[in-house]
């Protein structure tokens, strides 16, 4: 029992005496941890262990802490060593002694030498004065030029060339090492000389460098000036300033220029100008994407509808000061080959000076923009000249109409007697008077009041400005306000259409605004349109319930249906607005009997709308064909033509010859004219000739629609059967001889289209099903790419796992430590006991020995006595 600790102690002793490298190289000390996998590039800390070293470390540590505690156990008093640096392990023992000595000396001085002025005790070491040794030590220590290169302060030079004050502080570990290595080879004197030489050389070098740098800057300055002169030519303002700057004799010329450059507008990286081709391509790509989306919806794919938020700029953004993303910093821009900045600043100044004029300027801008827009529109329309003309006409007409209205209306300010120019001028004036901000209308009445008495163009401006002023990003409640505005605008359009005469031009003008608004709030627009449709359908349903048929919808409803087609995609397989709208159209086309030419016009408008609704998706609309064939029947002269009428038309009755011409001669001087939409409400046809012309117009519209339908539906399998009634009507009953030439043409085209359709088809079969694969029973193999890492868990879980693992490790470690501690303590106790026992044995032996001697002595004495 007593042996192992002894041996260990011996080993420890050996270890202590040996250096670290010696231990490491000793194969008996080293334990190599075997690695299972060799991972390239991974540095492992624990491939080699030194169990002996670590054990002896642990033991010594325990001796310092645990053993002390154990020894102190049950003891209430303590011995504290208050000698200087006793517990400071960092301090070298020599230092300790030295410092203690100095303190001792000081204490003696304080007490004894207050009055002893001359006495100076010189301390020596190996025969040399201690103070001198310290001096030179420190001078060597401040050799590190690398740190303070280029700094030539008085402090530094002092420290280099004499003056040993404060040098103790500057001593660093590095210096000490250097000292230790370099000390022995060179003598102190040499070192110092070398040092001085070095520093002087460096100083010279620095001076040379500085001169060179100065030269370079001067050169640069001159070059800059030459460039500046060039720039001066481009910007006169700048040059003036520069001249002034030059004229002034001032020391900080350079600083001025630098600062100027700093404050100068920097050319920010703007997006590069795109070539027209690029723009076009981009636009095309965007459209392609939207188109693909539309096709997907048309096919009725429900899944994966990604929410697309269209950031839409109003089609006619006015830029009238309500620009939302206005940047304070202006980008560098060129105008007519000159810099823009100067002018801008001038403008700014002007604005500051005469702030009142600003409004007018803005107004001008707005007008300009308006003009631009009109141009754009015309450009858009230029593909079809007709359209453009009609547009112009309608504008003029609207003006006319407006002037008329003003005459009639109570709030008339203009008089008809004024010439056109004057009128225009007045309008311009009125336009200029339009305020630039509008509060969003809270109720429908507000909107009406707001728009009352303005020209269509102005109404549109007002709506646009209202929209701008109340953009959702400007204030919290604006979104709701604008959403309400959507509903009000729709209501207003309906009202415009119901007025007599209907103000459809105004509706036309308001369309872009409504479109822009609706793009912002699809939900609100959808709801508004849905409620309109629901009300209309509901009232029609009620009428049908009672009477079995209903009257054709009024003009406002027709306008709503058209607006719905403009705002929402008509080609979707199912859409919350357009599907009901189409259903409504079909319902009206079946349930509303045709009793007059107005009804027929309404029906034809609805047919046009229906064709527009299905023009893209090419969906089959039976009601449309029914109505068109019914319309054609109405134009057939002879009663006995075996009519096969589908409701709402009847095979016989008083409205059966609605489109039959009263006089066959009237088609001679007929030419196609566009029917006004208001003809669905009222029309005045005085003479029979007018009426006949109107009939021919209707008939031509009808035939054109039939032709369009033929083209739309020519891919349907039952095309022949769908168009059979129309074909028989056209070929047998409505002979082309009685029709005017354009209609004959249409007639012929339709018949050709119908007869050219394929008659034969393949039989119907079910779609081929994909064979259902057999169940696979082979195991599923999953590739594991990173071992050891737990995948598929969230970050928190991973963190928790990590902490758990750490806790476990720590717990185990702590347990191990405690065990070791207790083992250590037990060993110590055992040691104690053993020591005590040995002592006792020794003592007993001693005693016994002494007793034995005593006995022996006594026996010898006795023997001697006997003798």
């Amino acid at each position, binding site marked *: 029992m007593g042996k192992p600790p002894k041996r260990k102690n011996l080993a420890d002793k050996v270890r202590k005496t040996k250096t670290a490298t010696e231990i490491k190289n000793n194969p008996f000390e080293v334990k190599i941890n075997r690695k299972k996998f060799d991972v390239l590039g991974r540095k492992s800390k624990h491939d080699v262990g030194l169990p002996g070293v670590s054990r002896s470390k642990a033991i010594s540590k325990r001796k310092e802490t645990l053993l002390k505690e154990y020894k102190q156990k049950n003891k209430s008093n303590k011995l504290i060593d208050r000698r200087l640096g006793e517990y400071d392990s960092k301090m070298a023992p020599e230092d300790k002694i030295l410092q203690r000595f100095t303190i001792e000396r000081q204490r003696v001085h304080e007490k004894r030498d207050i009055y002893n002025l001359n006495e100076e005790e010189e301390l020596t070491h190996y025969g040399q004065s201690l103070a001198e040794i310290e001096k030179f030590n420190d001078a060597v220590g401040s050799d590190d030029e690398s740190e303070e290169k280029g700094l030539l302060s008085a402090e530094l030079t002092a420290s280099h060339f004499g003056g040993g004050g404060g040098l103790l502080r500057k001593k660093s570990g590095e210096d000490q090492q250097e000292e230790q290595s370099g000390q022995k080879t060179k003598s102190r004197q040499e070192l110092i000389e070398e040092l001085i030489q070095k520093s002087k050389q460096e100083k010279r070098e620095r001076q040379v460098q500085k001169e060179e740098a100065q030269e370079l800057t001067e050169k640069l300055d001159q070059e800059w000036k030459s460039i500046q002169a060039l720039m001066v030519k481009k910007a006169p303002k700048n040059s003036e300033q520069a001249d002034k700057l030059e004229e002034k004799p001032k020391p900080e010329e350079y600083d001025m220029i630098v600062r100027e450059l700093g404050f100068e507008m920097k050319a920010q990286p703007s997006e590069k100008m795109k070539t027209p081709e690029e723009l076009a391509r981009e636009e095309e790509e965007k459209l392609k994407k939207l188109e693909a989306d539309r096709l997907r919806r048309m096919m009725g794919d429900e899944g994966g509808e990604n929410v697309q938020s*269209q950031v839409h700029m109003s089609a006619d953004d006015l830029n009238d000061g309500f620009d939302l993303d206005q940047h304070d910093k202006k980008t560098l821009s060129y105008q007519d080959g000159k810099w823009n900045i100067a002018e801008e600043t001038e403008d700014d100044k002007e604005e500051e000076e005469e702030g009142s004029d600003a409004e007018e300027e803005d107004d001008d801008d707005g007008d300009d923009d308006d003009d631009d827009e009109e141009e754009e529109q015309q450009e858009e329309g230029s593909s079809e000249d007709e359209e453009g003309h009609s547009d112009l006409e309608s504008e003029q007409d609207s003006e006319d109409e407006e002037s008329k209205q003003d005459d009639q209306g109570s709030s008339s300010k203009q008089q008809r007697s004024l010439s056109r120019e004057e009128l225009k001028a007045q309008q311009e004036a009125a336009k200029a008077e339009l305020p630039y901000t509008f509060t969003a209308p809270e109720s429908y009445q507000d909107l009406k009041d707001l728009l009352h008495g303005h020209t269509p163009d102005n109404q549109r401006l007002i709506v646009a400005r209202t929209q701008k002023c109340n953009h959702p990003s400007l204030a919290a409640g604006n979104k709701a306000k604008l959403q309400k505005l959507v509903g009000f605008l729709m209501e207003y359009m309906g009202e415009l259409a119901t007025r007599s005469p209907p103000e459809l031009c105004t509706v036309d003008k308001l369309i872009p605004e409504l479109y822009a608004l609706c793009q912002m709030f699809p939900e609100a627009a959808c709801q508004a349109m849905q409620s309109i449709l*629901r009300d209309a359908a509901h009232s029609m349903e009620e009428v049908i319930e009672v009477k079995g048929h209903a009257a054709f919808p009024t003009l406002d409803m027709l306008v709503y249906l058209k607006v719905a087609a403009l705002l929402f995609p008509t080609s979707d397989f199912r859409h*919350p607005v357009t599907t009901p709208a189409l*259903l*409504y159209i079909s319902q009206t086309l079946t349930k509303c009997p045709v009793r007059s030419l107005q009804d027929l016009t309404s029906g034809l408008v609805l047919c046009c709308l229906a064709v527009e609704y299905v023009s893209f998706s090419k969906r089959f609309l039976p009601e449309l064909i029914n109505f068109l064939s019914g319309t054609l029947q109405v134009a057939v002269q002879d009663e006995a033509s075996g009519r096969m009428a589908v409701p709402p038309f009847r095979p016989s009755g008083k409205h059966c010859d609605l489109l039959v011409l009263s006089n066959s001669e009237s088609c001679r001087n007929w030419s196609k004219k566009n029917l006004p939409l208001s003809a669905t409400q009222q029309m005045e046809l005085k003479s029979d000739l007018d009426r006949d012309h109107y009939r021919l117009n209707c008939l031509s519209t009808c035939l054109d629609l039939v032709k369009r339908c033929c083209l739309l539906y020519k891919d349907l399998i039952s095309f022949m059967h769908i168009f059979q009634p129309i074909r028989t009507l056209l070929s047998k009953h409505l002979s082309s001889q009685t029709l005017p030439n354009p209609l004959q043409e249409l007639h012929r085209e339709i018949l050709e289209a119908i007869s050219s359709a394929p*008659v034969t*088809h393949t039989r119907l079969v079910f779609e081929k099903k994909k064979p259902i694969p057999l169940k696979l029973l082979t195991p599923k193999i999953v590739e594991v790419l990173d071992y050891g890492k737990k995948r598929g868990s969230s970050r928190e879980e991973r963190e928790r796992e990590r902490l758990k693992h750490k806790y476990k490790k720590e717990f185990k470690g702590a347990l191990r430590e405690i065990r070791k501690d207790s083992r250590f303590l037990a060993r110590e106790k055992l040691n104690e006991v053993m020591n005590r026992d040995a002592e006792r044995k020794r003592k007993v032996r001693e005693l016994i020995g002494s007793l034995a001697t005593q006995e022996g002595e006594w026996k010898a004495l006795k023997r001697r006595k006997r003798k």
Partner: protein
Amino acid sequence: MAPSKKRNVSSKPRAKEDKTDLLGMVDRLLESRKHANDVFDILESLQSDKDKDVICAINACCKLFCTLLERKDLFIGKLPGEDEALNGEHSAEEKYKIFMRHRYNNCVEMMLEHLNHETHEVKENALCCLMKFAAGQGKHPLEDLDWSEHFSFPRELIQAVVQSLLSQTSDSSLMISRFQEFLDMEDVRYYVMSSIRANVATVMEKNKGAVLPVYQGNVFTLMSNLNMPSQDSELTNFMVKQEAKHEDWKAAKLHEHKRAFERMWLGFLKYKLPNSMYKKVLVILHDSILPHMSKPTLMIDFLTAAYDVGGAISLLALNGLFVLIHQHNLDYPDFYKKLYNLLEPSVFHVKYTARFFHLANLFLSSSHLPVYLVAAFAKRLARLALTAPPTALLIVLPFIYNLIRRHPSARVLIHKPSSENELLEDPYVMEEEDPALCHALESSLWEIKTLQKHYHPDVAKAAMLINTPLSEQEDDIDELLEMTAFELMERDLKPSSNQSVPMEFEIATHLLKGGGEVLGQHFCLV
């Protein structure tokens, strides 16, 4: 009349007191016979111009004569002429009774006239009063019972009331609905039925079978308001209780009721009816007429005639025919052929589409029908579907599918793989009236393929079903029958759940532009 004149002269300021006075007069009259002549005053105010006076007078008369009837103060038996009675040797008592009986008769006549008064209130009061008289008369008969087979029921009075209700000139549906409360009484109903029959017979004979819309309308309203009992035990509510021989009374026997009912209807339907009347009759025929007839098969003539009329009327006649075929073992030749010919484009547009398809579904539910017939129906319906509105399409498509499901051999209509690549023209002959000859079985339902491009998503989806084999389970058509276009629309108008609304991306600039510019090409704004 002399006393009345005197009285008239003497009572000039009577006008205002009239209302209170009349009732007082009635009281006096009832108190003693001295004031018997006041009855003339009451009768005279019955003819007043003012509605209020007339109503007062009616009430007064009602009270007066009901009391008199109760007291048996009216002459019973065969009434002698007035003059003759006064001169003849009757006791004063009898003379009074005879006098009063004559006044009562006058009163009834005037009341009957009032049934055609302009004011509804007058009519109503008169009607109530007459019915009270009838009740009183039933209780205290004015005739000798022995020779009357009608026991103590005031048959003539009811007949007269019915006659004036069935006006030939004005619509009296309001009065008839008022009269309905009395029709709940079994005996009244019985006698009303027989009087209607008599009345119709005489009136129509007189007009030589010509159509009289107003009159026939009135008759129909009255007849359709008759609620027939279904069991003997329900006959409990009588206006007049017969003391003796109640069991033998015809009005107390259900089969007599049924016979009267049957004869009434047959008598009515014998004559030519206006078209709307045909429809009305046919609509109620199967559930309120046929079950109450003793021999429903007698209706066969009417129904076959109606079935041959064509159009909506034929559709409606189907229902009655079905009841007869189904419950009364009627054999109707060429029934399916006729049904097949009923299928016209208008089938989808009339009001009775739902009813028609309900019945057609029943007729074609038999699995014993030949395949050619089923195929013909399916093909024809498919062809007609090309002109049908979406609500009808949502019925027709499942209907066709059900036909194919029931008759698996008809599956060739939607699946005929053997001749896959050959092109052929549709062999189906739409004009052929005989389903056996129309070659439907050789055709395919290309029309449904066409409808896959229908604009309404639900229809298109329904049409898509033919792309794959149909499921075994039949679709329940009855759920779809009553759907209206508005309901269909409502489905889409419901606020969609958190789904964003797609918007048109083409920027709208003008009202007439966009969407192919069809509208803009034909119409202008002003």
